[in-house]
């Protein structure tokens, strides 16, 4: 039986009164499970991560993290130590090297993954002495991913992790996500790359206007597409109600 790492019931958040970004979202992630949260830009995927982690003041009927009921925004440090986060916009101090960044972040955790292992695992060994400001976009993403997992977390949030990565780096990232799953880590992944979803996800959650419009296992998602004799991409566009719009544009 898989343990539930995080479970949110009726999660709500609005940056402005009367304009909810999240509207009664229910979500659970189990150990060893990769959940892909999909949806067009602006549907609340990043806000969902912030709400779960307590960096925005969201309301909820119930939020459980590693079996502990959460109240308000505060998350205990002992719980934070079991979570890894890679956000979309995270820049790092430009003039610290890759090794220094990893050493600094690893020191926040009780039993971190050794820095040499992180360098090797994320193909950063040759860049160990390169300052963050001199890294390419894809290399920065790799470092940010390494930082997200440096504390050997049980639950990882990856917000569009492969943005700006070349194909090799993306496949390396996929390997690491699969490795995390093998370790029993739960992963919440937001992405716009459907091949990534097919390669990694066990379950798909589609957000539309802040609400969960579809929740399917990956097998059912693929079977539905196969049954309708359409591609995964077309199936996804149908789910978010954009297929007609794409057809109109094509014509």
């Amino acid at each position: 039986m898989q343990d539930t790492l995080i479970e949110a019931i009726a999660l709500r958040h609005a940056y402005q009164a009367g304009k909810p970004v999240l509207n009664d979202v229910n979500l659970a992630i189990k150990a060893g499970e990769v959940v892909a949260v999909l949806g067009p830009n602006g549907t609340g995927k990043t806000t969902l991560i912030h709400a779960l982690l307590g960096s925005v003041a969201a309301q909820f009927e119930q939020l459980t993290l590693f079996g502990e009921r959460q109240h308000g925004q505060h998350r205990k440090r002992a719980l934070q130590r079991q979570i890894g986060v890679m956000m979309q916009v995270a820049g790092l101090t430009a003039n610290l090297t890759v090794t220094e960044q990893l050493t600094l972040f690893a020191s926040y955790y009780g039993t971190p993954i050794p820095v040499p292992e992180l360098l090797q695992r994320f193909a950063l060994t040759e860049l160990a002495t390169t300052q963050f400001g001199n890294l390419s976009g894809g290399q920065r993403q790799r470092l940010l991913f390494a930082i997200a997992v440096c504390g050997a977390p049980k639950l990882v949030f990856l917000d569009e992790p492969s943005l700006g990565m070349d194909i090799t780096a993306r496949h390396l990232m996929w390997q690491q996500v699969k490795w995390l799953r093998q370790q029993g880590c739960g992963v919440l992944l937001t992405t716009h790359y459907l091949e990534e979803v097919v390669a990694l996800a066990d379950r798909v959650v589609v957000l539309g206007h802040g609400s969960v419009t579809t929740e399917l296992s990956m097998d059912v998602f693929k079977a539905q597409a196969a049954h309708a004799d359409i591609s995964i991409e077309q199936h996804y566009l149908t789910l978010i109600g954009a297929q007609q719009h794409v057809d109109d544009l094509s014509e």
Partner: protein
Amino acid sequence: MLTIYQNEAKYDLLSLLRTPGFYLPALLFPAVFYYFFGVLFPYSGGDPARVMVAYCCFGVIGPALFNFAIAVAGDRQQGWLALKRLSPMPMSAYMMAKWSSSLFFAVIILLTLYVIGGSFSEVTLTRGQWLALTAVLLLGTLPFALLGLVIGLFCSDKAAPAVVNLIYLPMAFLAGLWVPLSVLPDYVQSIAYGLPTYHFSQLAMKVIGQDQGLSMGVHCAYLVVLSAGLAWVAHYRFRRMA
């Protein structure tokens, strides 16, 4: 937990030491300013020790204000601060690191100004006065660090340096750090009473017996209340930040 504080402080300082654009002006500006206008052409007049202490006040405020305002604004804008807040690092470690870096540069500035004052301006203080002066000047940077933090939490990384300059230089002048308040118009003196630079400098002047005579309690109370207020604003802003 101590390792987190040590590493934060170590890497914050390392990052600043790799940024000549920060430390060169921070270190050179007070020294050059003091040498020219306090030693070579001391038109503002006054006791050499008073002039040196005034420039020391001016010098140590700079790193506290700039390091906090510009670094925090940059970290916030890049998302680095958001990532740190989501990590198990206590935010106090981040703050302490920034303040300890500011103190590192403040110590260098003070030593430089002491050497200039002692060598070229015949400033003579007792050992106790030198030590007390250093302690007051270093501790007194706290409200300015908090002011920098608030600026960094509200301003963009492009606006923060301009805002700091906009308040730093007028606050220094109006508190009588370059020209003694006694030679300035009365209304400037009344403005000075409302400025943290005035109360900070008066505490430092008290060490050398050159203050205007207000009690130490008044200056300390002003700076403590201001620090508490700024800390509350920073805390509120942190809570509201997504």
